[in-house]
């Protein structure tokens, strides 16, 4: 390598890495390299997903990329001194990134490029296999693409787990002057960040998946509905769409085939309910995000009353790999009726949190204890919430359950969007149950009574239980209220809020058995 060839140093631009100082680290590397006249090119990549090691700095060497982390601004002069640009020894040196245990244990299909490439570089995307799935799809008929997706066993990654191919089939078969592709990127569940990381680290993947869907069902317009809490992802996506249009990948003609696909990002406005597909559609139409009754299905009467494919980010993002490698190759991963891989997001009170993409079928314990290393606080794990604020709380004894839609459903839990939040032994599960209702009360769209009123009554019942007033009677009310919300709510918001509540009550009943608090003077 000639002395003039710049050495590539990678400093993530992922929002999580920025949140712990990656920008200052990137600036320090640039400054120190300039001071020493070192030929360095700084690439702002996505995150590798080892979030406890962020900011994770990598340098490209003849042996592969060498990782250092977590790096602070102050560490940079010492790192450069120690020969960072040759992958030199330093206490923060972790070794070759690809050889790290966290990376080696994963099966990264969707996240294969995240952290590896320059997110906005189309050349980089292509060089790492980008657009191969789309090219294969363009040689097929819409019906053949739909058949491939069906055969892959891909199920909606937003939480409901509905077979993606069947949804596409419905839209494919519908006759209309206009069809839409809508990407649900309203990733509101606490404990989830896969969509955000994917948009910030490899934005073209979801765009490619949506373009394939458009070709498959005959749609010409698409929207990505992104939550406003993700300003970094928003910027990256907007730039990516402009670049993809300029390069002729989407827009007036997908890769010169004459099939138009106009794509826009639309920003949400801080409403959790917009993760529910019909309320998302209402919001895209510019209205209050009030849930619609189904039927009609969005596949037949969706956005502006037209046939619409609504899929989660991770569902679209799985599509290019499936088209490139074939349905069977994807279906070979996983277990039971859960085929392929799931990007798991490990967060909360955990020592090593981050993004882990694995075939379905690994146990929660392996993820939390082996990969996560237990709690960050070092205290015992007491509860784990899986699947976001509407997901169940599990006990430390229940962690041998496998990551699989049906296995979790069998224990009255759910996989949701693959978020796992760990709590240590200081958690008060009665307060967590109260929070579930409080959240529902704040975020309910208000259309159906069980959710709108039930959530508020739920907060009141939990307040009485927490203050020790007539606990057995109030627990009976709590169970009755929960049953009503499950049975009579219009959508998952009201229907699933009792899931965290009842799991807390059933598995952690000791927290509900409160002594009566002294009442204020009346």
């Amino acid at each position: 390598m000639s002395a003039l060839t710049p050495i590539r140093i990678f400093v993530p631009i992922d929002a999580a890495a920025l949140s712990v100082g990656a920008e200052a680290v990137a600036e320090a590397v640039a400054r120190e390299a300039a001071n020493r006249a070192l030929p360095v090119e700084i690439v702002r990549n996505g995150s590798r997903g080892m979030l406890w090691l962020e900011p994770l700095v990598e340098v490209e060497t003849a042996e592969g990329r060498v990782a250092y982390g977590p790096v602070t601004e102050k560490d940079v002069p010492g790192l450069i001194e120690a020969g960072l640009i040759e992958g030199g020894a330093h206490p923060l040196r972790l070794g070759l990134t690809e050889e790290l245990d966290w990376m080696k244990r994963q099966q990264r299909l969707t996240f294969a490029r995240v952290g590896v490439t320059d997110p906005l570089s189309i050349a980089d995307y292509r060089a790492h296999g980008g657009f191969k799935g789309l090219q294969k799809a363009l040689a097929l008929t819409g019906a053949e693409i739909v058949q491939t997706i069906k055969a892959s066993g891909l199920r909606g990654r937003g939480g409901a787990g509905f077979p993606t191919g069947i949804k596409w089939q419905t839209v494919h078969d519908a006759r209309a002057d206009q069809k839409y592709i809508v990407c649900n990127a309203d990733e509101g569940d606490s404990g989830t960040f896969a969509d955000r990381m994917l948009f910030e680290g490899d934005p073209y993947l979801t765009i490619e998946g949506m373009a394939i869907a458009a070709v498959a069902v005959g749609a010409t317009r698409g929207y990505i509905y992104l939550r406003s809490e993700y300003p970094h992802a928003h910027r990256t996506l907007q730039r990516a769409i402009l670049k993809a249009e300029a390069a002729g990948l989407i827009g007036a003609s997908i890769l010169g085939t004459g099939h138009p696909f106009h794509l826009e990002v639309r920003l949400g406005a801080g409403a959790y309910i917009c993760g529910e597909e019909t309320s998302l559609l209402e919001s895209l139409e510019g209205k209050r995000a009030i849930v619609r009754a189904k039927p009609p299905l969005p596949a037949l009467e969706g956005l502006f009353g037209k046939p619409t494919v609504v899929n989660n980010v991770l569902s679209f993002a799985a599509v290019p790999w499936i088209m490139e490698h074939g349905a069977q190759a994807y279906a070979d991963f996983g277990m039971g009726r859960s085929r392929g891989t799931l990007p798991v997001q490990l967060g909360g009170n955990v020592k090593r949190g981050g993004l882990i993409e694995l075939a379905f079928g690994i146990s929660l314990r392996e993820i939390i204890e082996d990969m996560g290393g237990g709690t960050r606080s070092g205290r015992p794990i007491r509860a784990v919430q899986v699947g976001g604020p509407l997901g169940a709380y599990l006990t430390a004894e229940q962690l041998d359950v496998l990551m699989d839609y049906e296995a979790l459903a069998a224990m009255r839990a759910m996989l949701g969007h693959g978020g796992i939040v760990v709590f240590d032994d200081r958690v008060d599960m009665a307060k967590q149950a109260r929070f579930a209702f409080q959240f529902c009360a704040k975020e309910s769209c208000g259309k159906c009574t069980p959710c709108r009123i039930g959530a508020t009554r739920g907060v009141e019942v939990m307040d009485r239980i927490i203050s020790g007033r007539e606990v057995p009677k109030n627990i009976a009310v709590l169970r009755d209220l929960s049953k009503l919300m499950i049975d009579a709510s219009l959508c998952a918001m009201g229907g699933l809020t009792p899931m965290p509540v009842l799991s807390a009550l059933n598995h952690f009943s000791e927290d509900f058995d409160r002594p009566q608090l002294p009442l204020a003077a009346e």
Partner: protein
Amino acid sequence: MAGYPAWDQDSAQSIIAGLAHLEGATLPILHALQEEFGHVDPQAVPLIAEALNLSRAEVHGAISFYHDFRTAPPPRRVIKLCRAEACQSLGCETLVDELAQDHGIVVDGAAHGDAIIETVYCLGNCALGPSALVDGELIGRVDAARIARLCDHGRRDS
């Protein structure tokens, strides 16, 4: 953290006119107005209604439904503090109590100098919490002292 220009009906009108051709233009217009002025003034309601052929009630209904939209100018610094489950597991509620007790700063309360702290549910930084979004920048592993400093910083800059 820029100060926002005062509400101006003419420039609001031209922002609305520039976006009215979009499908489902209401939210893009509301976001654009809030980005320009820091809030969506109630005076915008008839303008949007006229441009999009909607009733004023429909426009007002959209503005009031979404947590993001403000109808009055915000303080100079807005800190959005995550209080969802992942940040709860890392002590965000203790942080909220400490802010009140040690620094006299009430989350979702009145502005503290030129800063205001608002609750949000999840910023997607769940492995590095507690998290906050400060003037659009994400910060992780925050504690009460850092949030209080950020509030005071907002005040000094004004």
